[in-house]
């Protein structure tokens, strides 16, 4: 007795529907006879039998849809039927995990989010043991450490900058500045309608990443003006003035949660509006994202501080020793303004200069502010 099974007729054939029997029980069949027709997704296909014999039973009726290998009929006759291929169970190969470099002695593996949280909570990594992949210290490990330390409120430390240490440094510098530097102060209120119109025009066709802020235009005007008044661009050391080796403007940046940094934009007077904007943006992002290391702060030759559009109208800056000048930018406000004898509302900003009287006199300082004003009126040339 041999079984006649539903044949596999194709690589992706899983089942077939028997649409016609061409033999009946009792019929004699020979190898190669077409005994049935099977419907598949590809169409109807004639099915041959490979054994000689006599049909004894038709197991699957016409219309029956059965998977490949199912017995369709039984034959009486010599057994020559090849057994169906047993499915081969292939061993699952272990996933080829790239071998992680062994943790460097003393420097444990730590995942990025764990490192971030540890940094924010001032957790000492040496004391932790990792439970993550390759024994890395994970978020959970740090969270556990944080909760256990929560009682003793360790100060929040920004990676790279210790707020407490920064506070002390600012205090020391401001105290020295007030003690040593004879400041004189000048201010100039400037109509910035031309400047703002230029910025608005530039930004209209630019996608956000390439847009310019008014501060960048002010910075450009200041850099060009400072280049013309070298005695405001340098340092007062051992009783005499040392000129800067270029116009490197420190852009004062307030840090979130307190603290101040003034990373230098080197050769600001030779940079285009776009370059200035890009470096301002980069410095701010890195400073606030704790990406700046104190070692990176090259020494500015003059500092500019801007209160931004949410600050006060006017700032009276304190010079950052050993520099000899500092420019302040207030908030842009709308004020009545005399234009050709008539009064009309105009956006204005108050620029101030604090300068070290040992290195320069008020007259020179005044010329700087007037020059900045002149440049801003011809904003299209900047």
């Amino acid at each position, binding site marked *: 007795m041999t079984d006649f099974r539903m044949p596999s007729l194709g690589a992706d054939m899983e089942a077939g529907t028997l649409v016609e029997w061409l033999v009946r029980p009792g019929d004699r069949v020979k190898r190669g006879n077409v005994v049935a027709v099977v419907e598949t997704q590809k169409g109807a296909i004639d099915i041959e039998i490979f054994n000689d014999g006599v049909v004894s039973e038709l197991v699957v009726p016409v219309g029956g849809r059965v998977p490949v290998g199912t017995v369709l009929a039984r034959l009486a006759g010599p057994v020559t039927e090849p057994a169906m291929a047993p499915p081969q169970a292939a061993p699952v190969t272990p996933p080829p995990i790239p071998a992680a470099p062994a943790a460097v002695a003393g420097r444990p593996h730590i995942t990025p989010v764990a490192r971030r949280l540890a940094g924010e909570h001032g957790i000492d990594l040496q004391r932790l043991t990792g439970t993550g992949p390759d024994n890395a210290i994970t978020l959970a490990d740090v969270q556990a450490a944080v909760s256990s330390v929560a009682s003793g409120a360790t100060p929040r430390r920004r990676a790279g900058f210790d707020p407490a240490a920064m506070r002390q440094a600012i205090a020391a510098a401001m105290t020295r500045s007030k003690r040593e530097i004879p400041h004189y102060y000048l201010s100039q209120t400037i109509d910035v309608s031309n400047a703002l119109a230029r910025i608005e025009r530039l*930004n209209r066709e630019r996608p956000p990443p390439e847009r310019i802020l008014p501060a960048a235009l002010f910075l450009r005007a200041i850099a060009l003006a400072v280049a013309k008044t070298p005695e405001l661009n340098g340092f007062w050391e051992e009783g005499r003035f040392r000129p800067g080796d270029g116009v490197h403007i420190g852009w004062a940046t*307030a840090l*979130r949660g307190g603290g101040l940094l003034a990373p230098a934009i080197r050769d600001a007077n030779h940079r285009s509006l776009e370059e200035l904007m890009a470096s301002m943006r980069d410095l701010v992002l890195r400073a606030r994202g704790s990406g700046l290391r104190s070692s990176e702060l090259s020494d500015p030759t003059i500092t500019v501080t801007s209160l931004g559009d949410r600050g006060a109208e006017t700032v009276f800056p304190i010079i950052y020793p050993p520099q000899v000048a500092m420019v302040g930018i207030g908030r842009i406000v709308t004020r009545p303004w005399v234009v050709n004898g008539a009064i009309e509302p105009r956006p204005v900003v108050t620029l101030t200069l604090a300068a070290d009287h040992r290195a320069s006199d008020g007259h020179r300082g005044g010329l700087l502010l007037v020059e900045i004003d002149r440049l801003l009126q011809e904003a299209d040339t900047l």
Partner: protein
Amino acid sequence: MNAGEARTLIVDVLASIAPEADFDRLPGGAVLRDELDLDSMDFLNFITFLHQKSGIDIPEADYPKLSTLDGAVSYLTR
């Protein structure tokens, strides 16, 4: 992009600018610049990241529409 995705995206971007802020308790109507102490540079970065991540152009004239969290969500999903 639906409202949920827009909100997630906006919060993600704000988190990269003001990491210490607690966004769960940020009222939808609060003025972001005041609530999170964002200066014009922060706000420009906020607009830039939104533009880069969503592909939606945001002209300067529309900045006021994104002054609050709810305003920004409806702007991104209009």
